[in-house]
């Protein structure tokens, strides 16, 4: 078990006039190598939850374990935890401060006290992971980049620490479709090729559902669903719509057909699957019709 949360509660501004309960009784296990989508409305506690994973926040009550180590205890070296759990915040391009892209990405490894040649190796590796050419980009100023490129540099600056787990808070927010697809496919490749555990936070089901093995759905500070996206769409599409989260467009389409009396499986994630399912359904109907005619 990589990360385990037990009965975690978190309250902002405890005992103050503006007290708000952000997390309520969260119980969660994350295994090594999982690819998880964390979905919920703005303000439902997603960002608060992920900040518990690397000790930026400590629970008001409850326990957080990273690799069986209780990180809510005092005296734990949180730097070590943050090296294992890389957290990429929303709009990570807003944290860029160095003169060159090389220095920006080298910031983390430098703080780890690594030797010079190792730092360069890691910068090259990280730039490659986000598909930016070292020779073209290393000496450029990060402030001259486009929005999508800046975000990839910010992502590389976390990857250079070589975390075992990567948490991304809305990595596609404010990007055009091209930049969005690019960064998502890079994240997918990072997960597949390096075996890094990934948690992808989003308020949008589109795309994310297709990529992840496991979906966590949050509402008002609680995890209300936990399972493979297919299963959730097949069994609990109704509840998802009820909390106002919506389904991916194809899944929504299948769901509407089902409501109108078609006997369809709604656990589909992309257009191809939907096509197959609809064709199967038509075939089934045709054969039934033929049987009926023969009688």
């Amino acid at each position, binding site marked *: 078990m990589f990360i385990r949360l037990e009965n975690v509660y978190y309250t902002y501004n405890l005992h103050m006039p503006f007290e708000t309960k952000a997390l309520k009784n969260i119980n969660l296990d994350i295994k090594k190598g999982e690819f998880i989508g964390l979905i919920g409305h703005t303000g439902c506690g997603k960002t608060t939850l992920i900040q518990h994973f690397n000790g930026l926040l400590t629970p008001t009550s409850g326990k957080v374990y990273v690799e069986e180590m209780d990180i809510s205890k005092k005296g734990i070296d949180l730097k070590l935890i943050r090296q294992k759990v890389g957290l990429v915040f929303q709009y990570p391009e807003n944290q860029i401060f160095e003169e060159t892209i090389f220095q920006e990405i080298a910031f983390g490894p430098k703080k780890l006290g690594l030797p010079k040649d190792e730092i360069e190796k890691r910068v090259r590796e990280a730039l490659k992971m986000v598909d930016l050419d070292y020779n073209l980009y290393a000496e450029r100023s990060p402030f001259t980049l486009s929005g999508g490129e800046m975000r990839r540099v910010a992502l590389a*600056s976390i990857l250079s620490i070589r975390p075992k787990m990567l948490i991304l808070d809305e990595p596609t927010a404010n990007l055009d479709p091209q930049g969005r697809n690019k960064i998502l496919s890079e994240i997918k490749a990072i997960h597949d090729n390096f075996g890094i555990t990934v948690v992808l936070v989003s308020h949008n089901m589109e795309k994310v559902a297709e990529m992840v093995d496991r979906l966590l759905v949050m509402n008002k500070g609680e995890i209300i669903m936990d399972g493979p996206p297919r299963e959730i769409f097949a069994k609990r599409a109704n509840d998802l719509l009820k909390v106002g989260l919506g389904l991916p467009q194809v899944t929504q389409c299948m769901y509407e057909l089902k409501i109108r009396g078609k006997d369809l499986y709604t656990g589909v994630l992309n257009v191809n699957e939907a096509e197959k399912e609809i064709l199967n359904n038509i075939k089934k109907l045709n054969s039934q019709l033929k049987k009926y005619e023969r009688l």
Partner: protein
Amino acid sequence: MKILRNISFGQYIPRESLIHNLDPRIKILSCLAIIISLFLLTEFWGYLILGTFVMIGIIISQIHPKFVFKGLRSILFIIMFTLIIHLFMTEGEVLYQLSFLKITKEGLIKGLFISCRLFILILATSLLTLTTSPISLTDGIEKLLSFFKFIGMPAHEIAMMMTIALRFIPTLLEETEKIMKAQISRGADFDTGNIFNRTKNLIPILIPLFVNAFRRADELAIAMEAKCYRGGEGRTHFRQLKIRVIDILTLILTSIITIIASVLF
């Protein structure tokens, strides 16, 4: 990060109370009168009167006194510092001596005197900012300053700058916290090392903060121009300030009390 959340000095707490509903101009003038009389009076009795007056104000405002005093904690250092300076630096009748350091009776009295002054000063201004929303505060200041328009005081511009500055304090605090967390996640460390190192460690926070602030200022300027902003000339207000009987009564009461405190004592 804890520090950023614990600033209650200068924060507005919405409540339905007599003090909240007073005209902001009256509140600013009253506060000013109290401050002036604090500096005029010469006897401890004056402090007692003014202190009680401000405390009654806090009770009427329905804001928990604990919250008001929490904001004072950050000022405590300055108060202690002035007390100690006065304690040791004033010549006079020696009460206690430790080698070259000596505490004098005059120093003790003077130190306590100045501390009381600072204490009530902060209490009174806290009461003003805790009970007045930033918008009505700047509205009040604009109206008060417009008395000086004839000598070329840019009242509206000053008020607008204040509104924008006040508006962006929480935004910048929030952003600082976010950037700090992001850099901590990348291995930055803000809690250890000597002063020189700690200052150097602030660079990863300050540069993004400045970059974002300038970008934000730029966007705001464009947005304001797009909405045809052109200064205060001929601008109307959605919220009209009106002086009511209770406002006049409050002003009279404050005047009497501050005059008694500063003239009689």
